[in-house]
């Protein structure tokens, strides 16, 4: 049996924290620590060296974006530390800040996404392995705005669909499953997208996603 992933969890609402702990444990994660404020989160991230952190944006004592700041700070100290940020609202502004260091291993999801346990856990695992998990809402905002840009306007509607899912951090297999088409077709779509967006092709799954996000992040 593989070694369970160690999680540091920061969420100030008891019910939600408790629920997340139970859910993560049910999916065989190991809860290294479950904290309810910023300073403790910082300490836990430093001392426990978790495989992934699941962090609420808004935490006491300041009830501002303390969770996000702690996460960014921890990633500055330990680049690539996988962090999945949860929030009641998603903002492109925050997504950019999380993505800015280009190290991957970041997630940014609405709290609603925990309703679908499978997908949520999939997101946590993806982040833990250095990938990304972006909330569809962030991506939608970006894509709808980007739709007026020249390169994006050239994409077919199918390619846009693929791109949205890709930008969320999904693998080709997952995209194929969701869109009910073959993986090979997806591969063709993605290479088309890269050509149209003038992105150099790359085999690396993670770098591919980051390239797309970097493009979306521009402007």
């Amino acid at each position, binding site marked *: 049996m593989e070694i369970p992933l160690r999680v540091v969890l920061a969420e100030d609402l008891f019910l939600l924290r408790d629920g997340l702990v139970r859910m993560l444990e049910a999916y065989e994660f190991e809860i290294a620590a479950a904290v309810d404020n910023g300073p403790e989160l910082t300490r836990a991230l430093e001392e426990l060296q978790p495989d992934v952190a699941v962090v609420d944006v808004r935490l006491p004592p300041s009830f501002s974006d303390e969770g996000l700041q702690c996460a960014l700070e921890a990633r*500055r100290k330990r680049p690539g530390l996988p962090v999945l940020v949860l929030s009641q609202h998603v903002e*492109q502004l925050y997504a950019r800040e999380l993505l800015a260091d280009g190290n991957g291993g970041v997630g940014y999801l609405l*709290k609603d996404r925990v309703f679908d346990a499978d997908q949520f856990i999939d997101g946590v695992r993806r982040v833990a392995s250095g990938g990304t998990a972006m909330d569809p809402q962030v991506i939608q*905002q970006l894509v*709808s*705005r980007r739709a007026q840009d020249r390169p994006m306007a050239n994409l077919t509607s199918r390619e846009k669909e693929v791109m949205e899912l890709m930008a969320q951090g999904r693998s080709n297999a997952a995209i194929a499953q969701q869109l009910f088409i073959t993986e090979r077709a997806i591969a063709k779509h993605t290479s088309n997208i890269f050509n149209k967006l003038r992105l150099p092709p790359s085999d690396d799954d993670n770098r591919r996603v980051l390239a797309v996000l970097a493009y979306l992040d521009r402007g």
Partner: protein
Amino acid sequence: MSSMVGTSRSWRPPVGESLLASARGVALALLSIVISLLLFLLVLVSLTLMIVGLGILTTPLVLGMVRAHANQRRVLAVEWAGVPIPSPYRPEPEERRGGFVGVVERNSYLLKDPATWRDIVWLLVDAIVGFTTALLSFAILAYGIEGVCMMFGLWEYMGDRYWYGFIHIDGYDSAVKATVLGAVLVIFSLYTNRLPFMMHFMIARVLIGPSRGAQLAQRVEQLYETRHDAVDSSAAELRRIERDLHDGAQARLVAMGMSLGTVEALMERDPAKAKEILMQARSSSAEALTELRDLVRGIHPPVLAERGLGDATKALALRMQIPVTVDVELPGRFDEPVEAAAYFAVSEVLTNAAKHSGAEQVWLDIHYSAAAGGMLRMAVTDNGRGGADLNRGTGMKGIQRRLGALDGVLAVSSPAGGPTLVTMEIPCRLTQRAPQRG
């Protein structure tokens, strides 16, 4: 127009300004001695005619002219001397009845306004002191020029008994003296003739500017209105929130509770059906959350609470459908009402620009200057077709009300064909230094 201080620094006389002041002094003197005096007499006559009743008809007319005359002087004060004289009049009653009743009502409104009586006093003072001061700025210069001309032949046309100042003109020698004195006067007046000119407007300000009481009355009136608006709009806002909660999240929670009850009953009998209903309950809860999120954004945007105005407007700009170039430089945070009003104002203006202007690009500038008690300035510019009107659409009115409650102002410049520039200002202070990050 540059001030006295600015020009008296150099030793060269401010010839241009001085001559301008003289010319304007003449015009003012004429206004004072002719129009002011005439109007004063008319007022006296009209008030006297009140005794026989005829005055009731003439007084509003005459006082209307007095106000126009005083207003003209207020305008000149700013344009010619840089002396702002705010209008002190009480707001006119909104509904005006026609016919004789209307005239009587207008009469009583005018006569009850203390500013009217101060205007009348001013007419007399203006005709005497105002006239003198205005003329003085011209007269010394003119008299000086006359003296200078003495030596160059003017003395010959003077009779034996002509005195120029303290000099008796009785020959060429005395004409030379007069010229010297004239030259001194010319130079003196070039340096100083803006003084009486300014004094003219200072006197006017004392009499036709708002008195302390009138200033307070105006302020009270303004506060009354903005408070009224603030209470009104916050009540409307609460009503909207109540309705949204009632029809949205609340209803959905009720439905969810019902679904769960049904699931409980069906669980054993029809697990497939129970599962289906559970799915519905879950999507219902997701929708409730979405609605609540939108509601929260409308009440107080989370980014605003977390990051303050700068980042909140940046996040807002990112959500806009058209590209918005944001230039924000704020040294810290402001009081919550200020931040919220500023945010929603910017939000409304940006939305308008995106919806109606047909613009391809919008620029948002937000800056704070600490001078004069602190002022937050926001400007939204777009390259759209222009023609935006402050009086059309309720959104802009709403912003005005919201800013008004904080003594803020909104100005729109939108010529047909564009560009549209909306500027907003809120006087405010910083409450918190920008957090140090990194």
